[in-house]
């Protein structure tokens, strides 16, 4: 198994800094959804990780902890994530994306 980034929606939706999306070295890996978080009553949406593209470098963790000081991102073993976003389940909209979360591990 291997580590991927996991974003805490409740912290992210409260802060909404979007720094991790700008500092991830991989394209379209940390995405932003207006809907995530709103279902839990937050004003803003949240960032989330397309785990099939994440290479596990943890640069987003450093940025979230040290630049944004939000501590919303942790590295997690991929089989410890019950549900996650995968590229094939992500839909792009005008100003945001939506993702249907599924189990990232097959079988």
């Amino acid at each position: 198994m291997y580590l991927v980034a996991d974003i805490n929606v409740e912290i992210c939706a409260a802060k909404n800094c979007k720094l991790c999306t700008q500092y991830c070295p991989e394209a379209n890996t940390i995405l932003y959804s207006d809907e995530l978080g709103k279902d839990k009553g937050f004003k803003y949406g949240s960032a989330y990780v397309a785990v099939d593209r994440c290479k596990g470098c943890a640069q987003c963790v450093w940025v979230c902890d040290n630049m944004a000081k939000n501590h919303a991102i942790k590295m997690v073993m991929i089989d410890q994530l019950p549900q996650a976003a995968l590229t094939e389940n992500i839909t792009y909209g005008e100003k945001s994306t939506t993702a249907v979360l599924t189990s990232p591990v097959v079988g």
Partner: protein
Amino acid sequence: MSLDYVKFSNGFEKFMPKEYRDMVEHGPFGKKVTVSQMGSFKEVLEEHPMCAGCAMTLFIRLAMIAFPNPEDTITVGTAGCGRLAISQAAIPFVYGNYGDQNGVASGLSRGLRLRFGDKPKDVVVMAGDGGTADIGLQQVLHSWFRKERFTTIMLDNEVYGNTGGQESGMTNRGAVLKMAPLGKKFEKMNMVELAKVAGCAYVATVVPNNPRRVESVIKKAVLVAREIGPSYIQAYTSCNIEYAIPTDKVMEDAKAVENDRYQFQEYITDEAKQYLTERYGYKEFLAKSAAPAASIPGKG
């Protein structure tokens, strides 16, 4: 080489991969996208085999977002890590022999001007420190002397990362590397001053720990190269393998190097300032150029 070249032929849409459909329908072609919108649109850069946490990858990602007209841009590269990512984008990429990228770009840029006239077609060279400052130095300098109108971007990781860690002209003095065990004996080359002397109209140094600044300098460099003259950007893009930087400390290293030897510098000629202000509405040069402009006959 236009917005149309990525679109599907009738009836083929359902056979195309999801990533490609997303890129056509929600990509940046024909729109203005910015760094602050990252994460909400499909980028032209796709998955690539570069190392996890590579700062060069981040810089290339930001550069592709910063191109003013990605649908009218061609990138030119040479041997080096960067080509592994630059070639995985929905922007035509020309891969030259080692060191001839600025020669290839000169011909390409002239040919595009003959073919398309005033319609802007941007040529952007992205090569490593070896390709730009060592093996390709002759062609790089001569393209600047000839005032070839395209942008040269050096992805400076201060080492030959692809081939096991030899020192390059851009390696710092004293740096000990796997294939330079006694430490480099000479100073890091001052390519910024060379670019100014050789006649570049816009020169800047950046570090990718400031995405908005990277976006800003690349936009200006590409726009200046359309009409005024050559532009040069030198970006510090650390190699976390050869310099043993833990991937989660890459931005910490970038900040340290920025403070040490990569402070933000921007050089722009008066002609380029005037062009950016009048043609593209840049306001940042107005205050600085207001006083001298008043003394120029016929101005004001």
